[in-house]
């Protein structure tokens, strides 16, 4: 069968040859090197200890965000309950820190104040650091696996899944508040003195914690990137866009989606576990419905289908949040809501799609030149865009990792400028 009718689009070959240099393996490695340089060298030099530890907290949010990017952006699972997994990781770490501070066989202070029953039996294993770390890595992921299979096998999806996950976050927060003896109730757990033998009031140790979270974030971004560009990533997008079709090709989409959900849960858990020593407190206010949605807003604003959009969006929103609320305490909540609505209404694929959109607009303004096809190499920014069928350029010409992380803040500005001159 030969095809006549639609001609193969003539691709601007010069652009085509250039692109591998910007998007190939070296660009990816370069991007990671740049990010590592920024996090491990520039940030500690440029920021005060206080700001550095704030950035460490944002990095924890970014870890949750990168997982949400996979589950929601690529897998279509609008998870409004990541706070549950974040909270599980955080509380398990907090249990360990409390017990560690109390010393062998002793009862943590807050517990002794409330009752004389001693340490609950299910707290005991958390005296072991290794058990705690394993539990942080495995328990939330396993819970997500069970939840995922139970819901996705029954074809629960879309708004129903979102509501279910949100209800879970609400229930989790209520559970925590309802058990003050074991969880500190609504005040949560705080006043940690040490972290695996290192004193938390020592600035050097706090810097080390920042480095650990920076390293963890980089590893997670690398893992998510591999998942996105792999065949699994393509399959996940296929499940998002046409779940039934995937079924008729011999896959069980429930398994495909559950894996993404588990990865997202595991990352949220690790983020929570690092959040505790960095911030020094975990309470139901960090894990319920509102913080769960807060985690999502950054992802939506940054661009949920991309690799770096969620990371930068989460950091940006958290940074803007604390900066603005330092100056205008109540205004930020409104601004956050407004920003969220604007992005959903006008930029459904987030700020990450802005550059491509403007470029596409400029190009169509210039000449009706055929559009370049999306590069497979550039997959972290291409395949997922739902706008791809109608506007292939949007995703096709989006910048790659290195370019993007360096240039995001300047992008809208420069794009507007050049758009204005034409």
């Amino acid at each position: 069968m030969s095809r006549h009718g639609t001609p193969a689009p003539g691709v601007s070959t010069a652009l085509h040859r250039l692109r591998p240099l910007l998007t190939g393996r070296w660009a990816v490695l370069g991007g990671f090197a740049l990010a590592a340089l920024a996090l491990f060298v520039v940030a500690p030099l440029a920021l005060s200890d206080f700001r550095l530890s704030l950035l460490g907290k944002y990095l924890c949010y970014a870890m949750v965000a990168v997982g949400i990017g996979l589950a929601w952006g690529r897998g279509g699972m609008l998870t409004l309950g990541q706070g549950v997994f974040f909270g599980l990781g955080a509380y398990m770490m907090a249990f360990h820190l409390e017990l560690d501070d109390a010393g062998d066989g002793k009862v943590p202070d807050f517990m002794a104040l409330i009752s004389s029953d001693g340490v609950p039996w299910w707290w005991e294993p958390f005296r072991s650091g290794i058990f705690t770390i394993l539990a942080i890595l495995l328990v939330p992921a396993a819970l997500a696996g069970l939840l995922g299979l139970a819901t996705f096998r029954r074809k629960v999806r879309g708004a129903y899944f979102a509501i279910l996950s949100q209800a879970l976050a609400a229930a989790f927060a209520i559970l925590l508040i309802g058990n003050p003896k074991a969880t500190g109730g609504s005040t949560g757990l705080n006043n940690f003195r040490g972290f695996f033998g290192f004193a938390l009031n020592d600035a050097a140790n706090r810097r080390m914690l920042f480095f650990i979270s920076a390293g963890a974030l980089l590893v997670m971004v690398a893992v998510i990137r591999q998942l996105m560009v792999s065949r699994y990533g393509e399959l996940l997008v296929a499940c998002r866009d046409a779940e039934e079709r995937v079924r008729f090709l011999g896959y069980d989409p429930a398994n495909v989606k559950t894996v993404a959900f588990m990865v997202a849960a595991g990352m949220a858990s690790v983020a929570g576990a690092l959040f505790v020593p960095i911030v020094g407190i975990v309470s139901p206010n960090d894990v319920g419905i509102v913080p769960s949605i807060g985690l999502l807003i950054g992802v939506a604003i940054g661009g949920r289908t991309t690799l770096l959009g969620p990371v930068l969006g989460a950091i940006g929103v958290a940074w803007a949040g604390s900066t603005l609320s330092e100056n205008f305490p109540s205004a930020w909540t409104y601004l956050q809501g407004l920003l969220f609505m604007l992005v959903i209404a006008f930029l459904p694929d987030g700020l990450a799609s802005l550059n491509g959109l403007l470029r596409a607009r400029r190009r169509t303004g210039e000449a009706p030149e055929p559009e370049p096809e999306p590069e497979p190499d550039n997959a972290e920014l291409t395949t997922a865009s739902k706008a791809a069928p109608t506007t292939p350029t949007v995703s096709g010409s989006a910048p790659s990792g290195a370019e993007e992380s360096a240039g995001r803040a300047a992008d809208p500005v420069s794009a507007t400028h050049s758009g204005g001159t034409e």
Partner: protein
Amino acid sequence: MNPGMNRDYLELDDLTVSFDGFVAVDGVSVSVLPGELRFLIGPNGAGKTTVLDAVSGLVPCTGSAKYAGHELVGRKVHKINQLGVGRTFQTATVFEGLSVLQNLDIAAGSRRPARTLLRKRTQVPPEVAETLETIGLTELGDQPAGVLAHGQKQWLEIGMLLVQDARLLMLDEPVAGMSHEEKDETGRLLQRLATDRTVVVVEHDMDFMRSFATSVTVLAGGKVLAEGSVAEVQADPRVQEVYLGPGYSAEEAQAVFATTAAADSERSN
């Protein structure tokens, strides 16, 4: 019909589908052999698509649907597919945001070991390249499937079944909305595929059916009304009646089924 020694045939026995008391498919018993290009025709609401839905596991049904000795009734959709049963849909369903190549690679992937999923696709797998050639979309391999013309999407859907080497192909109106040339190309492709596979086509296009069917099953009201060669089916007064309603003259019936003899003799030459 005698299936002989080859077990790779489709056998429906008393297949029944009912929705809340409404019987959409009513005790259908049909056998389709490999090498056959079987058309399933009938007026709207006859239950043609529902038969495909039942066989592919989309709707619950009673009775039996066996392919290559495996009972399909009661199995899940993806398990049925893994037995080599593939289908397409009335409105071509492809992954619009993914490229043509990715669409085919995903289809091929369900037969690969799970660990290959975690790696990136670095080259075009041979079976994907071959299928791209077969369906004539090689040059469009990197295009998002969403930009394909309607007919090309239908071909891509057929290609997705070929690349996973489905042995039983069930196609739902594969030529709807195609131009004349495209229909002919599709028909010839289906004839080639039918030489070593079992192919069932649900179709409304009578010209297309006449040109390419080797056998026809006519459904009406969820029941098998007639079965046989194109000529036999057309000559059946009951078939003429369901297509035209009672009270039409034999001449009018003939007009609807015209050009049959010509098409038949052309093919036998």
